[in-house]
């Protein structure tokens, strides 16, 4: 099963590397990883989408926790969350179909961010399945390039996230 794990770690040289090294060294699956600064510039938030049975996920969380640079690890799976990904897509257009592509972009509430005489660049934001859907619809027109940001996730409202490991 897919799990979304949010990791607060030191915003420091090596912290990200150490987490990536741990994942590859232990042979854990990674679907996506994203990292960025938080409200506290000393701390980064890393969002990792990984896959495994309960035993593996328990090890993932424990191994993350064991690293000295990690501060808090939260498994956000099955929590009320807001999950977003951003994708940039460069799509070919022909004489007759530019309007269609722009319509599709609007349906997905995306933006056209670049254009030249061969292709359009679309920016689409949303949960990953929405991005998958947009890609599927645009595929027949010919997609030249895709860049996806990976997931960023926060829990909603007042509901406390299940803190799997907080270093007390």
């Amino acid at each position, binding site marked *: 099963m897919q799990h979304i794990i949010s990791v607060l770690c*030191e915003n420091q040289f090596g912290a990200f590397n150490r987490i990536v090294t741990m994942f590859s060294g232990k042979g854990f699956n990674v679907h996506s990883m994203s990292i960025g600064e938080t409200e506290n510039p000393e701390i980064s938030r890393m969002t990792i989408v990984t896959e495994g049975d309960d035993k593996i996920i328990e090890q993932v969380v424990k191994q993350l926790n064991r690293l000295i640079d990690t*501060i808090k690890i939260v498994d956000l799976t099955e929590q009320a969350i807001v999950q977003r990904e951003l994708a940039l897509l460069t799509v070919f257009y022909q004489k007759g179909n530019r309007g269609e592509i722009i319509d599709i972009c609007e349906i997905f509430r995306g933006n056209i961010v670049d254009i030249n005489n061969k292709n359009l660049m679309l920016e689409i934001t949303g949960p990953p399945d929405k991005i998958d859907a947009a890609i599927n619809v645009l595929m027949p027109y010919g997609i030249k390039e895709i860049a996806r940001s990976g997931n960023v996730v926060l829990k909603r409202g007042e509901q406390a996230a299940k803190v799997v490991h907080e270093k*007390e």
Partner: protein
Amino acid sequence: MHTKKKNMSGADIFFECLKRENVEYVFGYPGGAVLKIYEHLHDVDFLKHILVRHEQGATHMAEGYAKATGKVGVVLVTSGPGATNTVTGIADAYMDSVPIVVFTGQVATHLIGNDAFQEADIVGITRPITKHNFLVRDVNELASIIKKAFYIASTGRPGPVLVDLPKNVINSVCEFNYPEEVELRGYKLRTHGHQNQIKKAATMIQKAKRPLLYVGGGVIMSGGNRELYLLAKENNLPVTMTLQGLGAFPGTEPQSLGMLGMHGTYWANQAVNNCDLLVSLGARFDDRVTGKIETFATKAYKIHVDIDPTCIDKNVIVDLPIVGDVKHVMAELASELNTKPDVEEWWAQIEQWKEECPLDYETNDGRLRSQYVVSKLSELTKGEAVVVTDVGQNQMWTAQYYKFNHPRSHITSGGLGTMGFSLPASIGAAFGVKDRPIISINGDGGFQMNIQELVTAVYHKLPIKFIILNNSFLGMVRQWQELFHAEKYSFTELSESNPNFVKVAEAFGLKAFSTDKPADVVPLLKEALDYNDGPVLLEFKVVKEDMVFPIIPSGASISDMITRRLDPKEMM
């Protein structure tokens, strides 16, 4: 009024920090990137620098020192090749949770990434084999990083920490501030186990009919041998130990079942197989212990006490985990136990297993055997020596036949299985322990892997007794070839290529003796044990084809144990 503190150079700060950490020895080797440190070292008198002959030797010495004393072992080497030569020792320390701090020189920060002369990304290289590592980018961080390095290496589940020191950082100057306390928000230690879990564990022990304590190196690291002794003694519980656990409970006590696992005793493994309660104390259910997971201790309710949560439910799913310092947990557990379990029948059963298949070897053919040498050594030293073994048959025979009576007495490379460990590690142990004999036991193969460090032992007149159990083979590999690889003795025979070990030792300046006669063993061992003016080498030319029994083949079950070499007639 603000009084300005003294400005100090990075090199001075480095030594001031080592002083505050009470470092007695640094095992090191100089080179370009650390010349400034060596310049200052020249005038340092509060610690002793031990010049090694290869940086791998330095890391194993630091490990030997740390394992024998419980203190942090310290290594200092140059950048590039100096740093990469430490990798095996660091990996070894990581696998066996040994507290060492390795300082590596590095090229100046503005050259990092340029493929500068003697540059290696040692922080990147060692990331998966260190508990933590640091690149010091600014001299202002130096003191606090060194403080953190020692703290991280020695607390919780110990392990190696590497600190990379760029040349310009060492040359820069700043105000010296040694932090009194370490602040690491991502590193919090849990010492006391969960009270309810401990109560539950106590109830289980009281109710158990066939309980067994399975003890690992964690008990020794935590200093919990006294607590273990009381817990086991007062409740008449059988104790079996892992390779790293040997010495945690006295080997001469009747309650000790010896080692379990691949080369464990028949009765310890039968006890594992049949117990109804298995209490794991500071052990990690390593595959050399469990064999096939599906058949491991299937009748037992399992309690697992460990300071490292990642060890729990990693290999074997347990019924009752307790995260905490095993020393504290055992003390708390003992105080919760008010009625003793009824284990009379269980002991009768264990005694029967002991009779069924004792540890023994051929003694009637007049030929010299390793088991005999180790048994005599154990008797002569009354289990009081510090014994440092290498990897292979010599290691397993020592684990089986030497009766360790104290913690920190059995020093060996368990997790990584690093040949070439014993010789340098025994040197580190000899610096740390002066009041007990230090014995280094080796195979003829592994002895040659760090043989250059004999110089270090001779130069410092360390009274180490180096023993080579020379079977003219890479014995353990030969054993597997005989048992599992169609008797193809591919590249394991050394008889034609081995050097004359006595001459080699003499060239290095050691006293050396060699024999192939059982009658010489006791007199030679006695002579060596009485000689304390420097190292001695004893070469015992033993039977070539001997095998370590019992053996449970890799990944197999206890029921697949092989207890002796089968006669060709029996195999028909």
